[in-house]
């Protein structure tokens, strides 16, 4: 039984208009996405802007309503009303922008204690102790407790966000581009730290990013999204060493190389991919420009290709 299983997830947003503000269409932000995550692993979700990564993540934590499909967490289907235990406690989220994800009017104490106050009845003292503990865990000094978010750097803020997310001892964390708003130097800080607590707390990550370099660094398995659908999924090696789908290839080719000497080589490669992309576009996408269903090419690796025959 998979730890988290997403099956044929669809999230559509209505487009309203017409005489009575009726629904006249839908944005298919997520349109049939399936994947599984194993406990303790990091699953990367990659794709260009607007491909539906965030929407998928938000659907899992329950911020977006699901149009179709199921999300099963430890065998329990989410989004079913009337359950005794709230599995959402176990699923938390880290947001992209450390500046807007912390309420600027709240002290660190209140921010971190918020989930505790919602789920656990603690005394003042216990609560404070827990917050201290959490701060320590994310490497912030205890006196931070009375400060406001704007008194922290981006990296520190992101740590506060993490502290809040782990306060309820969740098992799954959705990290939506946790470092893309940060400077390179700070990025490293946050990434390292995320890896540390993953080990400490046996966390599972759904790591959303559009930076392939970081995904490669962080993730075990990767799913590539394009216009609300999966184009390819597999292990890190599958994706980076053996990309099958032309879109994946293009994505990989686009990563700038840190080595100036490979410049020409890289350019060459990119051009090849581009040519291939243009030539074989129709082989990979249907008439609407959407990806086909996934076909597995190995145990771990599947690619969106038209069904043969």
């Amino acid at each position, binding site marked *: 039984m998979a730890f988290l299983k997403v099956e044929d997830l669809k999230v559509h947003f209505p487009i309203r208009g017409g005489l009575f503000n009726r629904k006249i269409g839908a944005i298919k932000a997520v349109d049939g996405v399936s994947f599984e995550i194993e406990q303790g692993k990091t699953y990367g979700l990659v794709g260009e802007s607007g491909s539906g990564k965030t929407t998928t993540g938000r659907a899992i934590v329950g911020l977006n309503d699901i149009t179709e499909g199921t999300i099963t967490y430890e065998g329990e289907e989410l989004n079913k009303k009337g359950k005794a235990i709230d599995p959402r406690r176990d699923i938390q989220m880290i947001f992209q922008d450390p500046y807007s994800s912390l*309420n600027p009017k709240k002290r660190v104490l209140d921010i971190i204690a918020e989930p505790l106050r919602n789920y656990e009845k603690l005394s003042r003292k216990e609560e404070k102790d827990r917050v201290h503990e959490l701060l320590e865990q994310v490497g912030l000094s205890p006196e931070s407790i009375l400060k406001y978010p704007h008194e922290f750097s981006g990296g520190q803020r992101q740590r506060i966000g993490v502290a809040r997310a782990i306060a309820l001892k969740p098992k799954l964390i959705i990290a939506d581009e946790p470092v893309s708003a940060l400077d390179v130097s700070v990025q490293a800080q946050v990434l390292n730290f995320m890896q540390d607590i993953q080990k400490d707390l046996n966390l599972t990550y759904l790591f959303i990013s559009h930076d392939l370099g970081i995904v490669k660094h962080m993730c075990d398995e990767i799913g590539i999204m394009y216009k609300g659908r999966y184009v390819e999924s597999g292990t890190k090696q599958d994706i980076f060493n053996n990309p099958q789908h032309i879109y994946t290839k293009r994505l990989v080719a686009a990563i700038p190389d840190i080595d100036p000497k490979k410049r020409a080589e890289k350019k060459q490669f990119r051009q090849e991919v581009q040519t291939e992309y243009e030539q074989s576009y129709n082989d990979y996408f249907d008439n609407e420009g959407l990806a086909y269903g996934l076909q597995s090419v190995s145990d771990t690796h599947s690619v969106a290709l038209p069904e043969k025959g």
Partner: protein
Amino acid sequence: MESKVVKADGTPQAVTKSPSGFRIIWREIVRDKIALVSLIILVLISATVYGVSLFLEQDEIVKVDLFAIHEAPNDEFILGTDYGGRDIFGQLIIGTRNSLSIGILVTLMTGVIGVIYGLVSGYFGGTIDNIMMRIVDFFLILPFLMVAIVFVAIVPKYGVMSFSLIMTAFLWMGIARLIRSKALQEKELDYAQASKTLGSSNFKIMMTQVLPNLSSLIIVTMTLNLAANIGLESGLSFLGFGFPESTPSLGTLLSYATNPQTLEFRWWIWVPAAVLILVLMLAVNNVGQALKRATDARQRRG
């Protein structure tokens, strides 16, 4: 906005404690000499008016004295008397108190209603928002004046409180719309979304997360509204639908000026009230504008 400012100069090591929102506002007012003077004037006027009126009997002030009609300012009546022989100075004090009270009451009540309404509408959005905004639209087209007039006619005890209630019924929409649009933006921000994932109820998010972030906006708007509301009652009084004379207000004093004789020959009846209204509104407005600058980083002075 906030994030940008911080991004540029948020050095935790060096900045011991960056000022909180209120502190910024306070600093801004102190720095702005005109606003500071305005604030001092306001405090002085309010203190005087509320203080002195403790020693004044409204009934005594409005007592008719047949033998002191239309007296020019003199030793006994510092600001003279009106056509009922009633002391203008006393009326001015009580009138200012009443007008200020109305202004404050209306501002507070519209504030509370508007904020809650706007918050709910903006926060929940969708159909709720749609319906709530239609209601607002409807209130906006109501003939305010007419309703006020009907009330004047049918409400038996027409005093500061009932007047404020009527005004409130028609003035909460502006702030509701403003708060709604801000709440719409604010609830999309990650911190509000984060609260949801942390299990906070909608009510809690609205009240403890979104609301505090609208506080400076609310303060600014309410201050500017206060200025407008002080002047409100005078307009209705002018049209003859304000307070009875037994409840003096700046508006009733001012409306004496509609009598051309008073306007031309008996300045002491209306000029002090006009000046006071002007001063009050200017002062409140100045403070409001300073607050506005304080909350808008780009306009902040220094």
